[in-house]
Structure formats: structure tokens, C-alpha cells
């Protein structure tokens, strides 16, 4: 697929399951508070001691998918915020910021990824024209969401993805996430469908669902996958001369 950036094989760029290593503890402890994820205001960021300072790289990630697939829930889950129990429509844009430490496999360098998840209500984006352009402005990655319990949301994926294959946006990282994977009683999308889809599009596809667990194991696969593809894409962009590299290092407050 020429329309897509090359993919990094899982675990080839970043150390997967790094959160389980002992040496990662000093980094992960900065994003935790009393065993739970720490909520950072815009004036805050994880602070490392001066001798162990790490760079932070900032990325904008757009969540897209049909109304009710669970965009807001996924953002809350990934950010370690309380996942809403009742479904309410998001009537505008909500941005959640996630800090996630990652160790690069080749250099052994540690980075804090600052991922801004842009979540926009599907119906709101139809009612108000300015919302989608705002989400797409300088975006680095798109998460395409479908729900395992809603066939139409899965069937619509191809349409959605095609919109992001034009040359101007083809370098943007694309990841597919299937939500409500735990509700197998109501499952509307078979493993076979998913396999076929992956053969056609060759995009990373992740599954989420079920009770939100206390630890990081729940969110690590998604965040590591996202970080890996984003970093991989940045390296390609930096390598090619035609594309200007963006310096994305954020100064720590």
C-alpha cells in the first residue's frame, strides 16, 4: 500500500512491556499517584530529577468513528480517567493529554511521549463545520474506532480510512481500534472479518474492552503501539530530505 507509511513491526522500535521492567519504575512513578494515573493540568508535566532529565515529544492524535463506538471512553481509559458509565454524546471537541514513558530499542534512550487525544462527537461535527478542520490541523496520527457490537461502525472503516490516503495526509500514522471486545455475547464482527480487513489495509489493529484495570497493562499495548508508529514515522520523515522535520521537543515547565 503506497498510500500508507511503512509500518514498524511491533516491538521493533520501542521496548514492549517496558512498564514491567524494574528499571522503568522511576519513570512510570512520575505518571502515577497513589497507584492511580496522575491527571496533569496544562501547566504541569512529569518532572524528573535534573540528572535523569528526559525529553518530551508532543503528538496530536485524532479519534474518529461513528457516534457511540466509544471514543470518549477510550480517551478516558487511555488517560486513566474515570470512564463514563452512561453514554452521553460529546457535543464538541474534548482533548485529553497523556504522558507515557517509552524506551527506544536501538539507542536505549528514554522519552516521554505527550499524546494529545482529540475526541470530537460525531453528530456535533456534522452540526458545526469548524470542528473537524480544527481536529485535523497539524495532526500526527488518527485512531479509527469501531465497535465489535456495531457492524455498521466496522463496515464504515474503509470509507473513513480512504479519506486519509491522499498524498497530503498519507504520512499520518493510522491505527485501528476495536472497542467493546469484551461483549462477545453481542459481537457483530467476526475474527474472520477482522483478518480480511487487516489483509486489505495492513494497519495495526488493537482490541480494547472490559473492566478498566488498575495497572498499566490495560493501556500499555495501545500507547506503545501508537508511540512506536509515531516515532517510526518521525524517523522516516527526518531521513527524507523533502520533508521538513518538526522539532517537537517540549520544554518542561
Amino acid at each position, binding site marked *: 500500500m503506497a498510500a500508507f507509511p511503512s509500518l514498524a513491526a511491533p516491538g521493533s522500535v520501542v521496548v514492549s512491556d517496558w512498564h514491567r521492567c524494574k528499571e522503568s519504575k522511576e519513570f512510570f512513578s512520575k505518571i502515577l499517584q497513589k497507584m492511580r494515573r496522575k*491527571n*496533569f*493540568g*496544562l*501547566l*504541569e508535566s512529569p518532572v524528573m530529577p535534573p540528572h535523569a532529565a528526559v525529553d518530551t515529544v508532543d503528538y*496530536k492524535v485524532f479519534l474518529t468513528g461513528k457516534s457511540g463506538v466509544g471514543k*470518549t471512553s477510550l*480517551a*478516558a481509559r487511555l*488517560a486513566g*480517567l*474515570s470512564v*463514563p458509565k*452512561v453514554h*452521553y*454524546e460529546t*457535543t*464538541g*471537541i*474534548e*482533548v*485529553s*493529554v497523556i504522558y507515557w514513558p517509552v524506551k527506544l530499542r536501538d539507542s536505549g534512550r528514554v522519552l516521554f511521549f505527550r499524546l*494529545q487525544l482529540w*475526541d470530537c*462527537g460525531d*453528530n*456535533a461535527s456534522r*452540526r*458545526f463545520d*469548524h*470542528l473537524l478542520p*480544527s481536529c485535523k*490541523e*497539524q495532526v500526527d496520527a488518527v485512531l479509527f474506532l469501531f465497535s465489535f457490537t456495531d457492524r455498521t461502525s466496522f463496515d464504515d472503516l474503509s470509507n473513513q480510512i480512504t479519506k486519509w490516503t491522499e498524498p497530503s495526509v498519507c504520512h499520518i500514522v493510522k491505527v485501528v481500534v476495536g472497542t467493546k471486545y469484551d461483549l462477545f455475547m453481542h459481537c457483530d464482527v467476526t475474527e474472520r472479518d477482522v483478518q480480511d480487513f487487516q489483509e486489505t489495509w495492513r494497519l495495526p489493529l488493537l482490541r480494547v474492552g472490559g473492566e478498566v484495570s488498575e495497572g498499566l497493562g490495560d493501556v500499555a499495548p495501545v500507547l506503545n503501539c501508537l508511540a512506536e508508529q509515531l516515532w517510526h514515522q518521525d524517523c522516516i520523515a527526518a531521513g527524507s530530505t523533502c520533508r521538513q522535520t518538526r522539532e517537537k521537543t517540549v520544554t518542561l*515547565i
Partner: protein
Amino acid sequence: MMLQDGSTQLLCLTATSGVPLFTRGASRQLPFSIIGSLNGVHMFGGGQEVVLSSCETEGGGKVVWRVFHDSVMLIAVSGSGHGGAGSGKEKEAHLQRLLENVWNCMVLVLGEEELVNIRNVERLKRDLRSCFNLIDQLLEEKQEGILGNLTHCADSLLPPNPSLVQAAVDGFTQAADSEFGCLLVHGRMVSATEKWWRLAPQEIVLLAALMRTLSASGSSSCDYPVFLPHGSPTVAHRLLRFQLLPGADVCVLCGPTPSLQRAQSGLVVRFWAPLAETLRECLTVGGRCLPASVSLHPDVLAFLLINRETRRSISCVLCSHTTTKPSAAPVLSNGRCWELLKLFYNFSITRYFSQEETLCASQDESAQRNTTEEFVRGFTHQPLQCYLVTEECKSYGLQTAQHQLFLLVPPSVPTFALRTVATQTLTDIVTATGF
């Protein structure tokens, strides 16, 4: 007794055809036939040129109707709770206010145009779902310490360093190409630009409720299209919200620019990073709403102070203080104290004091106020103070040209001392903070 509480159900129908648009509240929905009858009896009245605005059931339940712009009918049905004689008036006032707030919510999210000229009922039904989050909040009234829905005054928090915060809000708002900006701490207004205070009181309260919902989700920033029910019911503005620190949010009401991204990356840190410490000090004020330097009479259980001119209020429950006193009667929970404070406010306002006329006070609403006016008209004077003694607590209300104060004290305080405690509390707060 005035002290009762019951669950409330809200029905929304099209006014002309009686098609149900949505129902919210109460776990068990009313059967369709009852909804139909409630609509029918109102319609019957209309045919006889009678406006049916409320009725009471034998068991103390209450139904309140209101039609907005001849287009949408809202009906509130409230359970009996354990009310008795005399509870009707407060409840009715409360439900009337609820309906007004719900309508404003609907306009805030969808705009007046879609609600007044209904073209496609199915589409409107779908679009109305976007209002449920705010409406459910109004029905549940779970958030302790927030009384704005009732008083239509902005729930405020007085910071230790007001001028610094004010300058930052003004500067940030201006840099975001706007004249409307405010800072919320723990969901209460700390500071706002002059133009923000010129919005209609209902709008200020409603926007604060929206910001609290957004803030509670924990997200870092938002770009929400909002219509202003009085200022701009047909043209949407953008409400930008930024979470500076968990619990501290700054908001601006903008036109097309700046984009959320630009404001977030270019303005937030520039204007607010130097104030991080000041914001942390505001956060430590917490539920007390007053800087620690202001000392209150030790007998005060809870108070609500309204500035009638600026339409701002501060309120706080200090129940935990009494637990240290061995002599104290059964200690009231914080939740119960808030409930009593609300009920006493409603009691005083419907009987003795006047609530500030809101800009849009409609015919129905002034009709509802007649009960107060009747009482007031019977005398040549305006009540300035009132009190109520119950088993749980003693309550005292007083009003001056500038303020209204509602105060709860434990039953152990002698009734003759209430006035002194109240006047002293008012003086203490006003002299220390200039509120």
C-alpha cells in the same frame, strides 16, 4: 414541613401535536397513557382559554407545565417525598425554575432555531440527546455546594489574591480575541472579565454548569459550540476551556478564532505558568469559598451569602466543626446541611424575601411570584429578617439593600441569639473580603 425531597421526572413534548420528545429522571418512567393525559389536560385548558401551570396531588405530588415559544412543552412531575401542608409553594417554585433551566440547556446546546421551528421531529429527538448530560445534572442536583440553579447567582470562590487573578483572566481573554473569560476553581467562579458579568444571570449559571461537567471529565481542554439563551440564541459561539491544574479551569467565549490548538499551545502556558502558585492557593481555599484569613462565628453550620447587585453568591457548610463539640446534638451530614440550606432559601424566597427579577422573567414566572407579592402587598413594609426553628437546626435569613444571607446554626443556639450571629457573620465576611 418544608423539609422534604422527592424524585422528579421530566417530560418533553411538542406543544402543538403532543409527540413525546424525551423523558429524563426517575428510574421508573411514567406510562405513555399518563404522559398523554398530562398533555391532554393542558391542551383542554388551552381550548377553554385557561393556562394550566401546576397542580398538586392528594399525596403531595406536584405537576408543573410550561410551554416555550409555542413549540416545546416541558412537564415536571415530582414525587410526594414526605411532604405535608405548606410544602406545595416551595416545590412549585423549584419545579418552575427547573423547567426554565432545562429549556435554557436545550437552547444552549441546540440553538433556538431548531427548537422553535421544528421541521423534522425524528431529527430533533436525536439531536436532543446531546442535552441529556446537562439536563440529568439539573435533575440530580448531586453536586454539593452548587446552588446557582436555584439562586441564578454565580457560585463563587473568593481567592486570597483577587487582583493578580483578575489581571491574568483579563490578559488571557484579550489575547484569545475575546471579551468574555472566567476562571473556575472547584467549579466555582473565582474571577471573570467585566463583559462576562454582563451576560444574563441564567447564562452565567448555565455556562458554569457546562464547564463543571467538562471539567469533571478530566480532559485537558475543550472547544464546545454554545448558544446563549438570551444573548445569542441563534448564533453559536465557541466555549474554550483549559484545565490549568486539576480543579482549576479557565474559559473563554470566542468567535471563529483562535483555534483550540493555537490557544492551547500559544497562550495557556504564556499567561498562566507565572500564576501556578496563585492558582494552587486558590485550590486550597476549597469548599470553604473564603480565604482562611476570614474567621466565622463558631456556631455557624452553613451559610449562603448573595450579593444582590453583582448576582454572585458564596456558600459553605462547616458541619465538621461541630463534631468536636461533645455537647452538640446529632450531627448533620454535609449533604443534609446543603439540602437544608437549599430548602431554607426556597422557603424564605417564596414567602418573605424577593428573588431578584431575572432579565427574562416571563409571564408565568411573575404569576408564580404572586404568592410572595400577595403577602408583601398586605403590609406596608418589606420583611428584612426571618427565622425558622426545626428539630434539626435553626435557620436565619436577613436581607439588606446589597446582600441576602441565609444561615444555619445548631438547635443548641438560643433563638434570641440568631440575629446577632447572622449580622456578625455578614459583617465579618463583607469587611474582610469586600464581597
